[in-house]
């Protein structure tokens, strides 16, 4: 126990194990399955979402392996069967990763765990609804699993066992009509119903977060004293609530089309397949920001904490999140430059798409400015954050040639697009997710991880990632189309490099997983505040008690860290009321009051 006599420090960061924390509060499987504690719900999401990540990753490795050579590698004597199998690989990779991993990853895991803590609240606004969202996620995932198991069984038994309506999925994760409604023999209905249900999980989570942020902020925390992670989560929630219902109705129409042949999207029956694309991208482009905005929030926290410096341009970062969320609704047409929409429409969409670059760049510049003059601590989360800045910059800038109509026409549906969005989805979002996971891991489980192993894992991941996808930029600009199982031999060198990179990337992920699991089981006990951050979740014990805070923490500038003084590795940072007033002009001055 520290010697400081403020009520916060008395309860906030004692180093003795708390008598009762949320992990030990209630035992047995039912105390988890029926919990309405946001922290436990966050952990349950983590188990399922990370399992999905693993499954999606298996398909990524499988499809990259098939691409090692231009011919049919998996079933050499039956090329057509190989190509069919490949279609299932890339579709399931995309569908599982998008709907079951990337979209829920940061909001449902980190958001659920951290958001009420950051608000100094006891729970989210609607705890029961939160549990319901989790079970809706599990139900949606079960539909997807049915498709997966059906496909696997069918392949494994050579077509002898076929689950009804469950033979894999080969439409691409976008379910484009009319292929998905008329031609495909795969489990489109089960998969779209799965995505439909998963969407409701996402909607309800977003609704919960919006209500929590509006109504549960403690006294003294006005909008511009909120941690930037919450701004990002709030912007994300806006998109989840406003865009996902459109996906729901689209998938419902798609299902009705496929089962009843209602002909809304089928030209043979009077429908319009391009309408499907408009509907789909009206959701799925904003969904890209559902994926990346929470990552921005995590990175804002990491950069300022590990620079030991007040975040630069707080308001710009906060507002840019909302700006991206709103602009994100107006750019869906840039997915459809080759779909026959009018030139004027394309030009307008192109222009608005460019404007998304402005708030994105605002964020990157503010992070850089935060780093400048900071005292940079290269802990594992910070390594991920620095990798993020580089990778997101590449991912963002390669979006511009795709937003330009003239250069998009040749690049459309090539590996250039694949590389671009993987730089944003994996290079940015997954790096931010892992950085955030490392950052909050001590808070979640009260255990410290091995920083050196963490750093090595991050760097291997970084190298593997770049090897995988830089080569895809090159082959894409040379004209290699995406989603093809076979290719002319001159592309083989790039595919081989890319596949080797994918293997390296997997090793980096396994190191991260092993390190975190090792910490969970055998890690050194974590202090209440190992990083010296001032957001409220660090004002309580690690792991937090069932009710989050023994004593309500006082709210201040979330990025004014000068009161926190490092004692030792065991004690972490503790509040020192006698700490000198900040001398650097960056400290505590740029937040609106």
């Amino acid at each position, binding site marked *: 126990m520290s010697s400081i006599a403020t009520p916060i420090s008395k309860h906030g960061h004692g180093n003795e194990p708390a008598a009762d924390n949320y992990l030990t509060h209630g035992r047995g499987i039912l105390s988890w399955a029926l919990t309405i504690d946001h922290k436990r719900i966050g952990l349950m999401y983590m188990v399922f979402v990370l399992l999905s990540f693993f499954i999606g990753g298996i398909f990524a490795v499988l499809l990259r392996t098939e691409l090692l050579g231009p011919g049919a590698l998996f079933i050499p004597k039956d090329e057509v069967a190989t190509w069919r199998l490949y279609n299932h690989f890339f579709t399931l990779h995309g569908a599982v990763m998008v709907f079951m991993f990337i979209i829920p990853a940061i909001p449902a895991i980190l958001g659920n765990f951290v958001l*009420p803590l950051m608000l100094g*609240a*006891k*729970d*989210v*606004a*609607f*705890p029961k*609804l939160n549990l319901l969202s989790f079970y809706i996620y599990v139900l949606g995932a079960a539909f997807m699993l049915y498709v997966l198991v059906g496909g696997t069984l069918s392949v494994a038994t050579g077509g002898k066992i076929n689950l009804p309506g469950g033979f894999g999925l080969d439409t691409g994760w976008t379910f484009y009509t009319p292929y998905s409604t008329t031609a495909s023999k795969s489990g489109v209905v089960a998969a779209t119903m799965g995505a439909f249900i998963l969407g409701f999980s996402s*909607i309800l989570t977003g*609704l*919960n977060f*919006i*209500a929590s942020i*509006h*109504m*549960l902020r403690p006294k003294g925390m006005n909008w511009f004293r909120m941690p930037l992670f919450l701004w990002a989560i709030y912007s994300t929630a806006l998109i989840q*609530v*406003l*865009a*996902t*219902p*459109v996906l*729901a*109705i*689209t998938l*419902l*129409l798609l299902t*009705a089309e496929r*089962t*009843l*042949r*209602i*002909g*809304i999207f089928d030209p*043979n*029956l*009077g*429908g*319009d397949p391009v*309408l499907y694309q408009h*509907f789909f991208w009206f959701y799925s482009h904003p969904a890209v920001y559902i994926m990346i905005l929470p990552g921005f929030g995590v990175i804002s926290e990491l950069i300022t904490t590990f620079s030991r410096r007040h975040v630069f341009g707080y308001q710009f970062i906060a507002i840019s999140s909302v700006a991206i969320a709103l602009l994100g609704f107006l750019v869906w047409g840039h997915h459809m430059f080759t779909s026959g929409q009018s030139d004027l429409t394309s030009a307008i969409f192109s222009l608005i798409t460019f404007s998304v670059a402005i708030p994105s760049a605002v964020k990157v510049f503010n992070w850089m400015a935060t780093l400048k003059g900071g005292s940079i601590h290269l802990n594992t989360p910070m390594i991920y954050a620095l990798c993020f800045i580089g990778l997101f910059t590449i991912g963002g800038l390669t979006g511009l040639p795709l937003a330009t109509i003239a250069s998009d026409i040749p690049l459309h549906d090539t590996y250039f697009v694949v590389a671009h969005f993987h730089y944003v989805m994996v290079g940015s979002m997954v790096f931010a997710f892992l950085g955030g996971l490392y950052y909050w891991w001590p808070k979640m489980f009260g255990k410290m991880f091995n920083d050196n192993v963490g750093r090595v894992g991050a760097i291997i991941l970084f190298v593997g990632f770049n090897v995988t996808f830089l080569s895809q930029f090159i082959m894409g600009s040379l004209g290699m189309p995406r989603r093809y199982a076979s290719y002319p031999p001159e592309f083989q060198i790039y595919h081989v490099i890319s596949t080797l990179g994918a293997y390296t990337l997997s090793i980096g992920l396994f190191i991260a997983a092993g390190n975190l699991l090792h910490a969970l089981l055998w890690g050194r006990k974590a202090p209440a505040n190992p990083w010296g951050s001032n957001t409220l979740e660090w004002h309580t014990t690690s792991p937090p008690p069932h*009710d989050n805070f023994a004593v309500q923490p006082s709210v201040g500038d979330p990025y004014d860290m000068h009161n926190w003084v490092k004692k030792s590795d065991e004690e972490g940072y503790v509040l020192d009321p006698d700490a000198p007033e900040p001398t650097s002009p960056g400290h505590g001055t740029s937040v609106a009051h």
Partner: protein
Amino acid sequence: MSTAADLAHADDPHAHGNPAHLAHHFDTPAQQFTTNKLGMWTFLATEVLMFGGLFCAYSVYRYNHPQVYLWAHNALDPFWGMVNTIVLLASSFTMAWGVRAAQLNQRGLLQIMLTLTFLGGVVFMCVKAVEYKAKWQHFLFPGEFNSLNAEFKGRDGKSPSEARAITIEEVEHEAHLRSGAEPASAEGGEHAAPATETEVKPVQHTQNSADVKSGAAEHAAGTAPTEASKEPPIALQAIGTVVTAPDLGNESAAIVPPTMMASGTNSKVDEKVGHHLTTYSELEPLDKSQLQTFFSIYFMMTGLHGIHVLVGMGLMVWLFLRASAGQFTSQYFAPVDLVGLYWHLVDLIWIFLFPLLYLIH
């Protein structure tokens, strides 16, 4: 509406101890009430966007094919639509009254109002069932049950073209009855003149002309093919006189039944109302192939709306049981208030569906 209770709570300090309905993570009942309300409004926003997708599909297809909507809406009876509109509006009124009763601690009145609202839902769904049954009988169910769908396989012992003829004849017949004009079947239904493969009829296409010659044209057309019938339709379209094959575009013309011919040539103007009843034969071939999209959209919209009404009725039962258990007081009536909001939204969506689907001119 609830501000009085709100304010009462806002000043209420913790001293009295927390009421049972206050969840542990809220400080005051007022905070909890406002949060719940915000959550409900956010949920309603998602509902609006979900229906928004359907309204968007509706707008696109109506803009692209206005004639399709002009003809197809004849299958809907505005009388039933109006009945349902009145029923839902009345049930919204009883719902609002119920919220007021809950706020004033009038448990009996609340139960009455919830029951009336529930009954409003029952009447609405019954009317909907009557309407759906008529669609089923007219071969107008969505998808492959719709005789206007290119993939229609025939039903109830009728071949696709027979069923289609029945659909067209009945839809136009009922529309004429409703508009007060003489029914099509009176002149065409019993004609039973066998059609020939090449039969093509000239039809006056000018929209707003109160066509005095149409009667004569009908007679000519009903008895024998005219000279113009030998001409390819497209050539004639170019010079303004639309000649439309009464077959279904790409379907075989051999089995076009006579009833359809007769009704098909009725290019009528209702002299009382003064608006033109679009007939099937006036439609362009492309429009004919699009007709079924109207019914797909109609069923998706009203079906999704109907599911929402059913959910609302379930909520009324839930509220009724809780009210019977005496769980609502002037201090705690949030569930009644929130379900009320939901019910009003369901009502509001119908207010848009009714004119968009039933009242097309």
